[in-house]
């Protein structure tokens, strides 16, 4: 248990370091808060980093299609934690009736990406904190903690010569914005162990009801539940330990290929 704690302490220290450094370099920053477990963990760390007085806004991209639990959670804790909450909505697209039943591809783009772009332009943010994790998805494998998008080297955040920050800063002028990923090295299970240790509130959607729960949440129309009986944090941690196959990981992809091969073989296609 003590080693698990020190593992979490190490992650926490690294993340707080990144959060403070990025703020001292950019100032015009905001953090994206999706209200999910990862970005709420990030928010928790940001509060710790600045002793509960966060010097920048929390930005929620609202598609209008979020679960009602998400809105309730957002409003409750924005108040309780005294957040400078900015809600970004692509009002034009919403007014025009954009939704997942309207056009499958355009919905996410219009309601999320465009809304984010509008908010960045309006407020002139130079950097954004995001709660993404490397183990979330295969395409995240190449993400950097500090990501001026097309840089191609590993960022050793502690041994970074200060000139490099300047280099990033000049880059930031040309690029749209810099993304900062303080949770990149965290795994799904670290998040849950930290949620438990710190007693961080999370929405009820993560806990199993009638044999299903959500492993990640977003728009109600685009999120799928998984079969699960885990209705407490302990059971979720246990579930993650025993399955260890992420729904979206490259590992799952290999398993799918194996199974596809078997299916094709059984019909003589290979």
């Amino acid at each position, binding site marked *: 248990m003590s080693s698990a704690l020190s593992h979490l302490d190490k992650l926490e220290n690294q993340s707080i370091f990144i959060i403070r450094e990025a703020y001292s370099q950019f100032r015009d920053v905001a953090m994206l808060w999706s209200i999910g477990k990862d970005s709420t963990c990030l928010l928790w760390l940001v509060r710790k980093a600045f002793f509960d007085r966060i010097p920048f806004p929390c930005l929620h991209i609202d598609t209008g299609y979020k679960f009602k639990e998400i809105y309730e959670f957002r409003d409750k804790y924005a108040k309780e934690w005294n957040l400078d909450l900015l809600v970004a909505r692509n009002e034009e697209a919403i007014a025009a009736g954009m939704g*997942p*039943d*309207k*056009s*499958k*591809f355009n*919905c*996410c783009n219009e309601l999320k990406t465009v809304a984010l772009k509008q908010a960045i332009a309006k407020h002139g943010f130079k950097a954004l904190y995001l709660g993404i994790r490397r183990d979330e998805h295969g395409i995240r494998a190449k993400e950097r903690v500090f990501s001026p998008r097309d840089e191609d080297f590993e960022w050793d955040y502690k041994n970074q010569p200060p000139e490099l920050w300047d280099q990033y800063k000049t880059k930031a002028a040309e690029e749209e914005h810099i993304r900062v990923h303080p949770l990149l090295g965290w795994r799904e299970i670290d998040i849950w162990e930290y949620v438990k240790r710190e007693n961080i509130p999370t929405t009820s959607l993560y806990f199993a009801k*009638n*044999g*299903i729960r959500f492993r990640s949440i977003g728009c109600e*129309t*685009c*999120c*799928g*539940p*998984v079969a699960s009986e885990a209705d407490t944090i302990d059971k979720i941690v246990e579930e993650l330990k025993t399955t260890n196959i992420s*729904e979206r990981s490259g590992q*799952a992809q290999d398993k*799918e*290929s194996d*199974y*596809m*091969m*078997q*299916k*094709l073989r*059984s*019909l*003589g*296609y*290979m």
Partner: protein
Amino acid sequence: MTDKPKTVIIGTDGVPFEMIEHFAQTGVMPNTARLIADGTFAKMQSSIPEVSSVAWSSMITGANPAEHGIFGFIELHPNSYRMRFPNYNDVKAPTFWDKRDGKSVIINVPSTYPVRPMNGVLISGFVSIDINKSVYPPDLVPTLQSFDYRLDVDARKAHQSMDLFLEDVEATLQGRIKAYRYLWDYCDWNTFMLVFTGTDRLLHFLWSAYEDKNHAHHAAFVDHFRKIDEVVGEIAGKLTDDDLLIMHSDHGFERLDHEVFVNYLLAENGFLQFKQDTDPALENICPDTKAFALDPARIYLNLKGKYPAGNVNPAGAETILDEIEDLFTEFQIDGRKVIRDVYRKADIYTGPYIESAPDLILVANAGFNLKGKIGADALYSKGIFTGKHTQDTAFLLIKGPHNPEKLPNPPKVSDIPAIFM
């Protein structure tokens, strides 16, 4: 439900024209017989090759493989001999439900996994693996599970016991029927598509039971088609004369005499060689290899620059293609010609993805099932399968407002969307 005219499509995977005709005439499929009497009934061409992934991708996009990018169940990773399995993400042309106004409910169409958001309901078909990636909107998953909805018949069971397999075919059909009945009233749709794939599975393993009245599973085979006809009757009964009902298959079927291994013939004639002391696998081919095949009979030149052990120069390509064409044109088993047609890619495909097409595509004569298996231990053999796909005996049945004059003769599987779009 609004009163706007609706389009309903019932797909039956692999069912040949002659079988529908036979079951309609012999009273096994009386509802289908009525549709034939009142509508247009035609023999239809499948895609080339006549496998489900290509045929259904062509049907739902109304496009040919060089436009939608699906040439088979298997492709190779770029600059490699490692296999990959294309899925819905690889279908590069829009489907009819992407283009059509209004909501669509699409159940069990092969090549639509993993699903993505669309206007309506999409439950993907073969090859679907994970139920959580097979259903849109995802909140339908628990409902489908409560119907014991199965994504597919588990064909591995046929290799254990035909009784187990038949049980699974039946359970899969019942789950599918429950899902269709539930989704019929789920939303206000314009287009409803329901595909039965148990037919193809039965035809692969039990064509023999169809042909032989004394076969132990003859009754079960016929009964499956009777049940499908009951669903056809149920659906036809819900429609008015202004609604369009289309019933079709993606390819036909016939008796299988021999499985013929294309790579074996290529190897026997020196076009394909494996490194010494290695397993016969594409990863182990030697640089002397001129060509290899992927299932079912898609022949690719081992081109320099395209593959790690590629050694064919573009300048020499045409000569090698001619040699391979001659080899297969002359190829006989038991005094019968095996190959009906040898096509160059430009003969049958047009579109932006033609570069990904095989260099030669073979279509077999009746009874010969061409296979791209690597490492077969004989040129041809007979295994567990008793039926095989056909390219030219799919069927199309249209009842409701349509213009039969506008239908190409013979129609192709990719002509279907034009009937209602």
